[in-house]
């Protein structure tokens, strides 16, 4: 029973990792931009949620109604005013600029909120559990987080493959020059993609902040988890990203169960094993 609980915990945390990864994967897929500041943007969203809950006196889940649009607007503006200027044939400028952005966000948060760790209080839902079977329990909050993660992936999948916006994303990713001939302004398409990515980041940030303590220095570790989930799942596949998040979460949970010090290490080992055995990831996108 013990192991069932462990794996269940891993799966549920994996949903959170999948949300970290989905925004990262989306941006890379549409504009070949590796967003080094992705983890720090997650932490930024957590702090925006903190301020929102405190000033408006609302719960963390309600605060999503504010945090998601705010992050989407930040994403659009960030892409339009900064990142669009870095895109070109060279992969290095966007990498350097987002790296700088990561430093700026971390230090800005440090100045505003100090290094003390904080947490969002969600009330009774935090400790509520459901009894599934003899000795098997799941927390309501982790379960909700997982359901939201699956819904986010399904939503992104729908947007990408069933809407005009997704068509524009895929066309611009295929051939930016020809996409312009269709009347698509690449700068606007990219900014919309970043807005969507940061909307997902906002959801991930709020759940991160409810789950555990956070402080301004936590971004880079979230970025690594996101990267690992993307690579394990296979680049360019959204459902693969969810699978990657689950593999990472389960590996960490197993590691932590064996020895609490092995939690992070076990995740990295699972990542390295996948990279060695199946470098294209579990569900690579087939490109012809």
């Amino acid at each position, binding site marked *: 029973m013990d192991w069932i609980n462990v794996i269940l915990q891993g799966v549920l945390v994996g949903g959170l990792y999948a949300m970290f990864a989905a925004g990262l994967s989306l941006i890379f897929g549409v504009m070949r931009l590796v967003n080094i500041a992705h983890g720090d943007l997650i932490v930024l969203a957590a702090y925006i949620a903190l301020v929102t809950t405190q000033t408006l006196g609302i719960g963390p889940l309600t605060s999503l109604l504010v945090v998601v649009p705010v992050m989407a607007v930040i994403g659009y503006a960030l892409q339009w005013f900064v990142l669009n200027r870095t895109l070109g044939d060279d992969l290095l400028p966007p990498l350097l600029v987002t790296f700088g952005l990561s430093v700026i966000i971390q230090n800005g948060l440090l100045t505003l909120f100090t290094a003390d760790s904080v947490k969002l209080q969600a009330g009774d839902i935090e400790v509520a559990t459901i009894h599934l079977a003899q000795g098997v329990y799941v927390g309501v909050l982790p379960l909700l987080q997982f359901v939201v993660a699956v819904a986010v992936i399904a939503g992104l999948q729908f947007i990408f493959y069933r809407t005009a916006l997704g068509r524009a994303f895929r066309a611009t*990713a295929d051939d930016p020059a020809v996409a312009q001939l*269709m*009347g698509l302004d690449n700068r606007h398409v990219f900014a919309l993609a970043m807005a969507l990515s940061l909307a997902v980041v906002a959801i991930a940030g709020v759940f991160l902040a409810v789950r555990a303590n956070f402080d301004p220095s936590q971004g880079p570790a979230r970025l690594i988890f996101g990267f690992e989930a993307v690579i394990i799942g296979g680049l360019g596949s959204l459902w693969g990203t969810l699978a990657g998040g689950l593999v990472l979460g389960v590996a960490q949970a197993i590691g932590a169960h064996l020895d609490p010090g092995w939690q992070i290490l076990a995740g990295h080992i699972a990542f390295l094993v996948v990279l060695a055995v199946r470098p294209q990831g579990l569900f690579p996108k087939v490109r012809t």
Partner: protein
Amino acid sequence: MPDRPDETAAPLLAVRDLDAFYGDIQALFGVSMDVGHGEAVAVIGANGAGKSALLKSIAGLLRARPDAIAFDGAPIGGMPAYAVAGRGIALVPEGRGLFASLSVEENLLIGGQLNRPGPWNLRRIYELFPVLADRRALPSTSLSGGQQQMAALGRALMSNPKLLLCDEISLGLAPIVVRDIYARLPAILSEGISIVLVEQDVVQAQKAARRVYCLQEGRVALSGAAKDLTREQIAAAYFGV
């Protein structure tokens, strides 16, 4: 100028003294060209003569002086490509440029995403190219070369352009397929669209277009009514001998 279109109205497209550059290399030197309303004009010339550069400049993919290109009476030189598309110029790019991750129908739909009013819609495109209707759900990469060219043409028409620019639609296609595609051009022209055809196949170009411009090393070496130009004139302009 003896080769002016005989419409008394101003031309739909007027290119005046256009210079164009690929990076530091100048591709066009003072090119001028007119395209009348509902007219088909062919641009011929050897490889590297500047035919594609001319189309790319008109479509907004290469920089140009604002007054070097006038469309519908308004200067459009140097406008970004998406804005040029919005004004009613569609380019069928060399090599077709279909979107590989989109299905055939999605490629057509994205051509129509500007929602410009006009005669062309999915149903009409499928009537013009029935083979595309059978393959609408397949990836665009699964089409044969000729079908891909039809899809690229259909995608351009979906934007209901006033001016259709076609860059080497016969490139890499079997002659019978080329004839098949050229056979559809009258149906397209009958909707009042103007067409600029860039071609290496001189005979095909002379048959399909009313007037011909021949480019040589970035300059207009010869222009005139298609039926009046002799083989010798074209050969001289084409090769510069």
